């Protein structure tokens, strides 16, 4: 019986429904269309476009872990900085593609250590650990450079044109979307949604919650490190204070929240308006950026807690005349499982009493 259930679940994992095929095709078309941007624009517009694609990669990879589990990761800057540093340190030793891989591996290792230490316990410890991670790695890097007597910064000299950066980041963002889509329909994604809804229930379902969380956090952080490796040559000069700038972590969270964290494409809707707004703020109020960032953040948390996707879906469901939110079958399934396990647990508690 159980093997039958397993094979049928595995089968569902491979089969692609017509709706999914349509979504995939639409996604591919959007990526191809976005690929034409550097051919049409250059200069400032292309710079902003590069920012948008970069933050899309960041925010979507952040969402892979923090979206379903509700564990707020504030460590993007640490992984980004690691990627930059691995690339900068190895630039004379190994070819660039190898360095990109090495950056991903370094990020994955750090994420695994952090995940194994914190994700077995409670969510708060994870948030606290992630809050200072960028500062910790920065201190260690500064110390390391001091001990080994190298300069405080490193030069990264590879010749890459601006369109090339754009395409690389676009490709990475597309890969992140594919991975996210695949996780969403896998057993792992299902497990994570249950964890996000109720961790006790997840444990009682027989889910190895720590393993699922660590795997996802490693995947998410690996992508952030790879972005660092892709962007390092564009900056040319890498030093600790710039590479581990904590406001990056902040911006990524704010964009993902603005877009909405319960849909894979949510961050995209947050990244585009926020990057444009941010450009405007940096030009108009260069001295008050931190303050205004904080204000934007509070506005999002208080006024639109479900993000733009939440607003859009509310509007759609109201127009369609549905009573409640539509919700896909998978999350409905998760709710069903949680409901029934909860009843079971309560029943047992009553029984024991």
């Amino acid at each position, binding site marked *: 019986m159980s093997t039958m259930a397993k094979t049928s679940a595995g089968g569902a994992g491979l089969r692609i429904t017509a709706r999914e095929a349509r979504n995939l095709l639409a996604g591919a078309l959007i990526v191809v269309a976005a690929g034409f941007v550097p051919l049409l624009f250059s200069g400032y517009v292309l710079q902003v476009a590069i920012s948008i694609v970069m933050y899309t990669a960041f925010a979507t990879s952040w969402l892979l872990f923090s979206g379903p589990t509700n564990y707020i990761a504030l460590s993007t800057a640490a992984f980004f900085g690691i990627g930059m540093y691995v690339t900068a340190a190895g630039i004379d030793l190994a070819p660039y593609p190898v360095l990109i891989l090495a950056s991903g591996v370094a990020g994955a290792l750090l994420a695994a250590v952090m995940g194994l*230490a914190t994700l077995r316990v409670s969510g708060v410890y994870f948030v*606290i650990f992630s809050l200072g991670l960028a500062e910790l790695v920065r201190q260690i890097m500064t110390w390391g450079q001091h001990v080994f007597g190298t300069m405080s910064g490193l030069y990264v000299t590879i010749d890459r044109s601006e369109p090339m950066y754009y395409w690389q980041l676009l490709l990475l963002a597309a890969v992140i979307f594919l991975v996210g889509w695949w996780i969403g329909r896998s057993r792992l994604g299902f497990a994570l949604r249950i964890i996000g809804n109720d961790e006790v229930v997840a444990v009682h379902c027989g889910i190895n919650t720590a393993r699922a969380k660590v795997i996802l956090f490693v995947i998410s952080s690996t992508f952030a490190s790879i972005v660092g490796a892709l962007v390092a040559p564009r900056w040319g000069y890498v030093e600790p204070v710039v590479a581990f700038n904590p406001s990056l972590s902040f911006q990524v969270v704010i964009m993902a*929240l603005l877009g909405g964290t319960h849909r894979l494409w949510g961050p995209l809707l947050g990244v585009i308006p926020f990057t444009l707004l941010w450009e405007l703020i940096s030009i108009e109020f260069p001295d*008050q950026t931190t303050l205004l960032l904080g204000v934007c953040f*509070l506005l999002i948390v208080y006024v639109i807690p479900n993000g733009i996707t939440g607003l859009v879906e509310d509007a759609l469901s109201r127009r369609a005349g549905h009573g409640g939110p539509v919700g896909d079958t998978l999350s409905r399934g998760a709710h069903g499982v949680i409901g029934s396990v909860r009843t079971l647990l309560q029943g047992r508690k009553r029984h024991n009493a």
Partner: protein
Amino acid sequence: MDIVIIGLLLGGTYALMAMGLQLQYGVARIMNLANGEMLIAGAFGAFWFYLGTKASPLLALLFVIPLAFALNWAIYRVLILPLVRRAKSQGKLEVDSILATFGLSFIFIGIMVAVFGAQYTDYAYLSEPIFIFGERYGLNRVVAFLASAALCTGLYVWLHKTRAGLALRAVSVNPSAAGLVSINVARTSAFAFALGGAVTAAGGVLLSMYLTFDASYGVVFTLKALIIVILGGVGDIRGTIVAAFILGLAETAVATLIDPGLTLAAAYILFMIVLLVRPEGLFGRRTA
């Protein structure tokens, strides 16, 4: 010997700062990521007061504590309470309050940069030496330690000997049961949050007497306070004091023996050990 004494002096001041967070997290159940910014605000208050009057920064406590209390009360009323009401569960409240206070910390930094600038700040108060066991130490460190010890003792006695303190401890142990014995939980939580902010700001005043700080340095103190609270056990004041001394010693040892730039690494190593060995903290109760 140096390490032990400097570490104890530092730990004594850390104890005050961590007690502030303990009140906010242990009693009011709000994970306040803007705690370190409140500390830096207190430090700037002392700096500004000292520059203006040349009087002892300890006198700055007289206005920093009430101001910080009022400000934190207002923060709780305006920003946190809507989240408490909106939250469907403790977990949701935790996520929301983490996000809100994280945003708040950036607002604080922005305001402080606008008012005081982004440069490193320090001032020389009582920077004459004092001899303990034949070694030289800064008098300002000793004075800050004594002031912190006095405040901590006062707070401890207040918590354990008065009815209001008892109410606070009751809410810390179990908010819903505290409500049953006619403690106004909402009011007590707001009070604990405000008091915690005031205590943290007082810690900032004392730390500013011998540490260099800048507007964006708060996050480091938030982390240290959090790690002390977790190490000591959430909701346990004794644990907080012991843990503050442990962190002070560990940090001073790393700073003296390896590199002064690695203090955060010392805190993280302690954090890792706690997480791996005893996640509920030294004095914490293991929850089922």
